[in-house]
């Protein structure tokens, strides 16, 4: 069976990886291609690249940086941020991405999910969604867009179901509340998502120590976790290596790639 995946997610600004807390106050970490190479060699299972300001600034994705990163990693690589048309998606795939991720653009124009799935296969289209617990929707979780700045009034769980129905092959669930908090993933959110959809789920936001991964994989249906903070956030008292995390999970009975 499949291993649980540990994913490094890069928030890119101007070709450099940055790290934010609750989608704000980004601090600079390293040039994207340099950190990508380090993460690949360290044994991370996958890489996600978000051009985080593209959508808000209404500009196309930073394709030059995508190309540079794609040249140094030989693991799956997802690209998102500012993809608003089929030709944008194709440009990202052509530049070396394996999958494309849509988020705010999909909320504005849901048919982009269906179009992407039809053209490239549904396994190629990742729906990423920014979720906040607001109590204003049936599940209590609400979808936000544009770098967690704009509330939509949409129910997050309903949106995930709709996204799956439109053709998303994977859903990345970003908890705005837990992002950068280091208190663990939003397990309730991931449980609700796991019951609602059948496609693979990636949990994002909140990991601060290896136990958070163990509880995520043992108590929810998440198949993958974003672990950026633990790997390289300068805000953490200590960072963990990928091997350290995998050894920890493996010893506790979680199937990982070694």
């Amino acid at each position, binding site marked *: *069976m*499949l*291993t649980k*995946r540990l994913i490094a997610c890069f928030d890119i600004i101007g070709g450099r990886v940055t790290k934010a807390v609750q989608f704000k106050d980004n601090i600079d970490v390293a040039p994207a291609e340099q950190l990508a190479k380090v993460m*690949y060699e360290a*044994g991370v*299972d996958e890489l996600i690249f978000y051009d985080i300001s593209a959508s808000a600034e209404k500009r196309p994705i930073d394709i030059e940086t995508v190309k540079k990163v*794609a*040249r140094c990693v*030989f*693991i*799956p*690589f997802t690209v998102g941020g500012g993809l608003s048309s089929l030709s944008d998606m*194709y440009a990202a*795939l*052509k*530049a*070396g*991405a*394996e*999958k494309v991720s849509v988020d705010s653009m999909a909320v504005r124009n849901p048919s982009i999910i269906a179009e992407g799935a*039809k*053209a*490239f*296969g*549904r*396994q*190629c289209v990742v729906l990423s969604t920014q979720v906040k617990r607001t109590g204003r929707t049936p599940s209590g979780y609400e979808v936000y867009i544009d770098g967690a700045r704009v509330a939509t009034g949409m129910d997050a769980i309903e949106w995930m179901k709709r996204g799956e129905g439109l053709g998303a*092959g*994977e859903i990345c669930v970003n908890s705005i509340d837990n992002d950068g908090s280091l208190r663990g993933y939003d397990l309730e959110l991931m449980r609700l998502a796991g019951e609602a959809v*059948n*496609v*693979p789920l990636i949990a994002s936001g909140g990991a601060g120590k290896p136990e958070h991964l163990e509880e995520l994989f043992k108590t929810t249906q998440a*198949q*993958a976790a974003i672990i950026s903070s633990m790997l390289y956030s300068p805000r953490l008292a200590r960072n963990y290596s990928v091997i350290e995390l995998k050894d920890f999970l493996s010893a506790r009975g979680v199937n990982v*790639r*070694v």
Partner: protein
Amino acid sequence: MKIRIIDYKAGNSGSVLHAVEHLGFEAKCVKSPAELEGASHIILPGVGTARATMDNLRELGFIDALSEAVLDKKTPFLGICIGLQLLFERSEEGDTPCLGWLKGEVKRFDASAVRVPQMGWNYVSFTKNSPVKAKEGHYYFVNSYHARPACDGDLWAVSDYGGKFTAAVWHENIFATQFHAEKSGQLGLELLKGFLSL
């Protein structure tokens, strides 16, 4: 050496090219069948649906040129992901007639038993030795469909996702992996190197 990577509209020829170049080989992504002339190795990469991929290959005029190079001239061929599925007679995905170089069909995973698509690292065991050296271990898969070869002899590797499924096939000069060798870290790169060293 003339390594040719087929660049049809929905493919991920870029990823494959990067991996091939990283291994120290020169290769070219080609958009027209004429560019297959004299190829030493042909790679058909894959991201996309069976229907869209077959349509693209047909529109670009690749079908006959590929058959000639692979079936008649026996040029070493590597299909990846959808590039494996298209080798068979028919795919359940959009009920699409495919190349039919290998006997068998392509079926969808049972979504009531497993999450579809399969997306992630799965353990691959090679069931026989081929001229392309490959090690068992974790390789990266992204697929909703899997091939069922009619001839057991064509099976090269298996993996398990709610039951055993075809991870790779090998028939004479035709090699194909359901997993993305170009995205499977060191093990995948070694397999690619083995193919390019034929």
